[in-house]
């Protein structure tokens, strides 16, 4: 895990930019659908995080994303050490 990159903070920044609204109270336990983020917006957030951090999350890793923490874990696993 790369300590210089805070995946949760990156998610919040990217989600706010993509969905044009703030996500102040998001934690790793937050359920993505309960944040009002639909599947297309989620893919937009994933794409933005990928290009911003310079990594690729394989499609099979995107199947079971329920919480924000699920996504953060996938991102952290792909970050260079």
């Amino acid at each position: 895990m790369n300590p210089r990159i805070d995946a949760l903070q990156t998610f919040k920044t990217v989600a706010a930019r993509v969905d044009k609204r703030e996500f102040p109270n998001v934690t790793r336990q937050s359920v993505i659908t309960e944040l009002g983020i639909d599947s297309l917006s989620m893919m937009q957030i994933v794409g933005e995080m990928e290009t911003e951090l310079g990594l690729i999350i394989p499609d099979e890793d995107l199947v079971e994303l329920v919480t924000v923490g699920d996504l953060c874990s996938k991102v952290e696993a792909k970050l260079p050490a």
Partner: protein
Amino acid sequence: MSGRRIAVTGLGVVSPVGNDVASFWQSLQAGRSGVDFITAFPTDKLRSDIAGTVKGFDPGRWFSPKETEIYGRVTQLSLAAAFEAMTQAGLGGLYRADDDAPHPEVPGVDRTLVGCLMSTGQGSVEIFEEQIARSTARGPRAVSPYFIPGVMPNAGAALVTSRFGLMGPSFNIASACATGTHSIATAAMMIESGDADVMVAGGAEAATRLNTVAGFGNARALARAVDGDPTRASRPFDKRRHGFVMGEGAGALVLEAEDHARARGAKILAYLAGWGFSSDGDHLTRPLADGAGLALAIQRALRRVGGDQRDRIAYINPHATSTLQGDLAEYHALRTVFGERLGDIPVSATKSMTGHLLGGAGAVESVATVCTLVDQIIHPSINLDEQDPAIELRLIRDALYGQVDCALKVSAGFGGHNGALVFER
């Protein structure tokens, strides 16, 4: 003529000369141009630097910031025009602002038999430009998942049906500059066949972008300011005409089976009595010089009304692109149909003030034509400093008050697609 008479019960417009029907119609009567210099992007390397632009449209009235990004401008203008038309028709109660709320109902209206043909010829050009630029700069992973639903030409019809809960027929017709006219005609056919009771139909375009102005300009199709004045550039049938002016906007008509409109007490503004389609079958962009294709569409529209309707036409709203070839071909088409009587029929070109709204043109001009029937006023054609002597039309230079019971709207598009509508009161 079949059993179901097609009534017009609602009108809606967003245009370079007004963002609702009342202000649009007032501007047209006053002969006010909506053409100005382009300021949205640099024009120094382009062949034309003017356009008819919609001013003061507020997406925030309709969309969240996120939705404003998803839906292209053409889609946004489509919704606004459709909303005005639906509201006038007494169907505004169907509108649902919150996507998660249940669809409201309006008494006497079966939502499963209300449809939408709000079309565009080009779709959301700016989304194409933006996403291609993103992909080029940051790679394909950066392309928005909303790219396709945003850019698809049927986004307008999709948005209108979802906001109003319409479950009748809906799709997009793309026939370049005949798009709006073809959509209105096809909507009437859906009602005539019983596939729908009500259709909100028309067209929209908001394609004035660097690359489209370059494309039309490099085809030498665009006009430039005349003596430094952009409002004088769109000059249909004038001797100094030299191309069209790109415009943006949307027009919508609510068409409804007459029996349905009467049963729910809707006010009938006019009737769509006839419609005709044809093709030039000849060339990608150049119209047939003798207007034979366009004449066919007009003849078919008149025939559909029943009997010989030529003597009843008391106003013609022409296509009037303001190109050298287009205006001449249209004159020949009208001459073929109406013969010597053509010189008696008042003609005025909405495009002389709005510029060319492309996929929206036929719809916005149909709104003007219905307004003529309602108010018995013919709007002027402007920039007729010297009428082309080869074009013997009775062009109206100042608003004309007089009896108009039956009017013709004509459209022709790149690709040789022709359409004609006959409205009556």
